[in-house]
């Protein structure tokens, strides 16, 4: 008997995956040459499985600014901002983020996960109602569990179902907070914000949009799905992260709500964790400035994404969502997905293997992501390799119906 016995089923599932020749949890990048190239077990791979949408992880200026702050402020803050003080880098980053999004208030967190934990658990309290999209990220669900509000799921990206659930709450006391994501991370589909905003207004609810995957990617200025849908004024709280298009780590929450700053004294995931190392804050700020200065990065990203998506679609793959930086190949069964993933890695193309129940549908996915840093030659090689492997495994054209 062991305290770990309860994980027996999980262990067996992992072993079954290993027997198929795939162990995505064992992948270790032992070197990184650029935003798109690294080595795994000594062999070169093209990275098509990241969230490095603008390719800024290796941007010379981003790296230099991080190094400079590392030298000036040391390796870490060793404590929380509430107990151990704020550093200049935190404050500057918050000011610049607020300006970028045109919001009054900005709060920076140590991770995006914590930003969601903080907002879900604190904004909605006992007697309030959280209405969350069923395909929400784990950090949203975990934040809901950390708080005391009643949590109701609505069908993924289904404004009608959201409206129905708000109607059922009529007459009940408490605030309503609707939670959606700008871009959903597994299939890359976008929130139907124009319709959701109408429903939010009619119900007198608050709306939080997690722009983790859309920040730097969507909208004329890269402010995300709300900017793209022209509904920013109706979004009460924006959550985001520095770990995707900004290439670092950290999270943030933004709002125009008067008195938003009081949350610094109420959000446990803000108060009881060490704050961002100054080097990370400085690198994130450098990346933000790069995004502001270089809108062409976004255009390159979308052109690359289109090339990759169209290449796979033309070959007959069943793809999830829409053409965008996240392109997921939908497969019928786990053994095929595992062999597909392993063969791609063997051929030098790294993508992400996503298996149910961590996928929004009950099917396994090969989640691929495209960045502004990929060259057309790299994209073409990845497409050709996927087509060759997919043909060999009989995984092309087996599921032509695409319902997102």
């Amino acid at each position, binding site marked *: 008997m062991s305290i770990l016995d309860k994980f027996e089923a999980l262990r067996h599932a992992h072993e079954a995956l290993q027997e198929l020749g795939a162990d995505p949890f064992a992948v270790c990048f032992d070197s990184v040459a650029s935003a798109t190239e690294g080595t795994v077990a000594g062999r070169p791979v093209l990275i098509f499985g990241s969230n490095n949408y603008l390719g800024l992880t290796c941007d010379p200026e981003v790296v230099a600014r991080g190094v400079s702050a590392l030298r000036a402020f040391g390796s870490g803050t060793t404590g929380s901002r509430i107990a151990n003080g704020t550093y200049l880098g935190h404050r500057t980053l918050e000011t610049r983020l607020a300006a970028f999004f045109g919001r009054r208030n900005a709060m920076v967190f140590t991770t995006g996960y914590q930003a969601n934990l903080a907002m879900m658990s604190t904004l909605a309290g006992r007697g309030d109602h959280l209405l969350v999209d*069923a395909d929400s990220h784990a950090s949203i669900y975990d934040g809901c569990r950390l708080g005391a509000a009643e949590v109701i*799921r609505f069908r993924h990206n289904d404004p009608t179902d959201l409206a129905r659930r708000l109607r059922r709450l009529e007459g009940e006391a408490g605030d309503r907070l609707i939670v959606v994501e700008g871009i959903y991370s597994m299939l890359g589909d976008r929130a139907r914000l124009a319709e959701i905003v109408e429903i939010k207004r009619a119900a007198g609810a608050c709306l939080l949009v997690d722009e983790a995957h859309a920040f730097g990617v969507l909208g004329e200025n890269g402010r995300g799905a709300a900017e793209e849908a022209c509904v920013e004024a109706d979004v009460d709280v924006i959550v985001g992260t520095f770990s995707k298009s900004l290439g670092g780590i950290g999270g943030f929450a933004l709002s125009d709500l008067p008195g938003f700053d009081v949350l610094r004294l109420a959000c446990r995931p803000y108060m009881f964790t060490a704050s961002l190392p100054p080097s990370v804050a400085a690198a994130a700020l450098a990346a933000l400035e790069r995004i502001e200065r270089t809108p062409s990065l976004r255009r390159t990203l979308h052109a690359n994404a289109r090339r990759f998506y169209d290449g796979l679609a033309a070959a007959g793959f069943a793809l999830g969502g829409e053409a965008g930086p996240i392109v997921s190949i939908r497969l019928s069964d786990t053994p095929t997905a595992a062999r597909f993933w392993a063969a791609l890695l063997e051929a030098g193309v790294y993508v992400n293997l996503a298996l149910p129940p961590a996928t929004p549908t009950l099917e396994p996915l090969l989640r691929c992501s495209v960045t502004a840093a990929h060259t057309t030659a790299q994209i073409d090689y990845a497409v050709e390799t996927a087509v060759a492997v997919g043909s060999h495994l009989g995984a092309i054209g087996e599921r032509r119906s695409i319902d997102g």
Partner: protein
Amino acid sequence: MPTEAEITETIVIRLRALVPPGVEIGPQTSIMGDLGLDSLTVMNFVMWLEDVFDVSLPMDRIVEMETVADLARALQSLGAKEAS
């Protein structure tokens, strides 16, 4: 308002479609434990029931429910309307 027995019957009929033929299902059947349904299937099943009875089951209530009878009682206590 439907009775608990009527709600139970609706649940059982629907669950039969999700498991292999011949599997016994009754009020004391554990939905995940006995039927081996994964959490995603259960959540989708619950959403279907919510539509049928026009109620929303908060997530903390869903976590507490184990058997078919637990689910039927929860739906009834929330004011389940006639099955549509």
